[in-house]
């Protein structure tokens, strides 16, 4: 670059020496406030992990904290089952195109987005009356609602938020924190034993047939009300192979009739 050897070094050294005396870029934050606009709150954006999945857990903490309620959000809950949202969907959510579709009366092309079913909320009102609309009793209220409906319907929680004035985020947070509270209609569990004896007797084929019929596979969490397919943790002593259980009770399923049995079970449960 330069014809004189060492000139580059001299230039670099001169630059750093000038920088030494130049004004500094550091802002001593607690003592000196940075010079930004009064209402500047930084840039809102959702972060992605290294796999490209969005890291937002839809916990609503930001929406709850937002003083002007400008944050609207929607997404799936942490277990990937329910579409939840905060704020008016028509404003920003899901986002404008779908909102426009919905307003124009056309179906929204998002199969995962289903509005919660309306329910009879008189039970919720009675429970709230009993607890004097006290949001500090939230856990007890939620337990009572679950006792009344068998699970926690989203409509009940929305109604609870509306009537008691408790933020939906608080209710939702409490409901998702405790593992004994559930949002789904309690479903049934079919389990296949995959021990060596059962595999020899053909439980692998049985498991595949069951998975095909139930529309799921071993280990996947089913959506609410659907039948879950699991693996029997240990072979029940004395039970015949291949072993299939329904809610822990051994079922008389031979390796030929698994598909028919599953079809009958699915029909019984869902329909």
């Amino acid at each position, binding site marked *: 670059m330069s014809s004189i050897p060492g000139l580059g*070094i001299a230039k670099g050294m001169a630059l*750093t020496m000038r*920088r030494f005396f130049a004004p500094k870029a*550091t802002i001593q934050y607690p003592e000196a406030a940075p010079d930004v606009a009064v209402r500047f709150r930084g840039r809102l954006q959702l972060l992605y992990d290294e796999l490209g999945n969005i890291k937002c857990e839809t916990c609503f903490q930001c929406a709850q904290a937002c003083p002007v309620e400008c944050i609207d959000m929607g997404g799936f809950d942490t277990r990937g089952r329910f579409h939840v949202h905060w704020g008016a969907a028509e404003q920003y959510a899901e986002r404008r195109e779908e909102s426009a579709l919905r307003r124009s009366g056309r179906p929204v092309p998002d199969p995962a987005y289903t509005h919660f079913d309306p329910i009879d909320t008189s039970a919720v009102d009675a429970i709230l009356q009993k607890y004097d609309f006290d949001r500090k009793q939230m856990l007890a209220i939620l337990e009572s609602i679950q006792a009344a409906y068998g699970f926690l319907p989203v409509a009940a929680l929305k109604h609870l938020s509306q009537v008691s004035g408790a933020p939906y985020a608080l209710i939702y947070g409490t409901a998702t924190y405790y593992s004994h509270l559930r949002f789904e209609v309690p479903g049934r569990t079919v389990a296949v034993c995959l021990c060596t004896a059962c595999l020899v007797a053909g439980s692998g084929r049985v498991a595949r047939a069951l998975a095909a019929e139930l529309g799921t596979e071993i280990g996947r969490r089913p959506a609410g009300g659907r039948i879950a397919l699991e693996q029997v943790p240990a072979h029940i002593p004395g039970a015949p192979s291949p072993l299939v259980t329904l809610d822990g009770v051994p079922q008389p399923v031979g390796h030929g009739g698994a598909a028919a049995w599953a079809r009958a079970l699915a029909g019984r449960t869902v329909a």
Partner: protein
Amino acid sequence: MRASMTSVLAFARDLPAGVMARLSIQERIAIIFTVLAIGGAATTVIAIVWLGPPLTDFLGANQPLVRFVVAATAILMLTVPTAFVLIYLELKVIARMNLRVGPNRVGPWGSAMSVIHGLKVLSKEDFAPTGADFTVFTLAPVVTYMASVMTLLVIPFAPGLIGQDLNIGLLYFFAMSGLTVVGLLMAGWSSFNKYSLLGGLRSAAQMISYEVPLTLSVVGVILLAGTMSLNSIVLAQSGSFLDWFVFKQPLAWLIFFIAATAEANRTPLDMTEADSEIVAGFATEYSGMRFGFFFFAEYVNVFIVSALATTLFFGGWTAPFQWPWTYNLNWFQPLSFGFFGWLGILLAGLLLGSYFFGLLARLVGGRTWGLWPSVTMGLLVDLVVMVGLIGLAGFVAFNWVQGLVWFMAKTYFFVIVFVWMRATLPRVRVDQLMSFAWKWLLPASLLNLFVTATAVVLLNR
């Protein structure tokens, strides 16, 4: 005092009941310090009464030995604060060059930062990997650090202020700084880690390669001065700054500076550590104060290399010019107040000065300055002023204070140049590093040696 007395009494009373467990930390510390103080005082008295006369006889009979031990201890004690100052300088100067502020929270202008660093390193877990050769692993930082410290023994800080004026001082210096390589190799080998071993070998290769031109570049200076004693080399440069060897040996100075950069493992030639690229090489497996010693040795090395550059090429402790005025300190002689007289003057100065500066702070600061803040401020300002005055008096009155000031000023100039280089220059590649040493520096230093030798022979004829 009262707390410690009650603690001691309680300790004596409840001794069988295991009272130590029931005491608070403060009480335990008070007890331990009381016991230590009483024991220490008693031991001192006994030592003076019993061993005093034979001890003084022994010390008087072995004055060179005593001098050596005292000098070595003093230099060992000197290195830690020096490393602290250098680390602080590096943090602060590089920060300013990066348009940052640097440490500014601990102590005034962050000056206690490196002390905090040292305490942090001390408080860390002392860890040795499984399979490490524990003896060598433990000794490696000691060897590295001691190699750095022992070189300081022959550096003349000021007239008369030298650890040991060896007639082979320069040779001793390079022999001792060569020991650093042994320490690094020990660290790399004993860590039971192939990366550490590679790092150790790489640093050994670098340092040995650069030791050759480093040592050869200095031979020209030895030829000119006719001695290897560093004190004599400094004396050979006394006069004005035109007598410095840097003007007679510019090529040697250039080679020396580059090779010394590599020898002290400083950017751009810090392949040994290369903290941003490789895992710190030989020091990978080190933690706590073991690592701290490597860390300190690095900064002590910077100081040593700067001190050697000052000594060999920039006149050491000699002043760069003669004062255009002379000062006569004979008026100092009649003012002989004796020890207690001077002590009284100092105390009076402290009191009056504190009062004066405190009043000044009160006047300038107005009502925001309360009584105690202004008194404290006055005391601090007065202390600074008095230390400055005493230093000025020493500078005028004592030759060695003057020499020390000049020596430290020159040395710290080069320290800052090293830091400045670290803030500026990117690191070179390892093959560039090695080929530069062998293909350029070594021939250049040989050329310099031959030219100097020829000139010395011709001019002396």
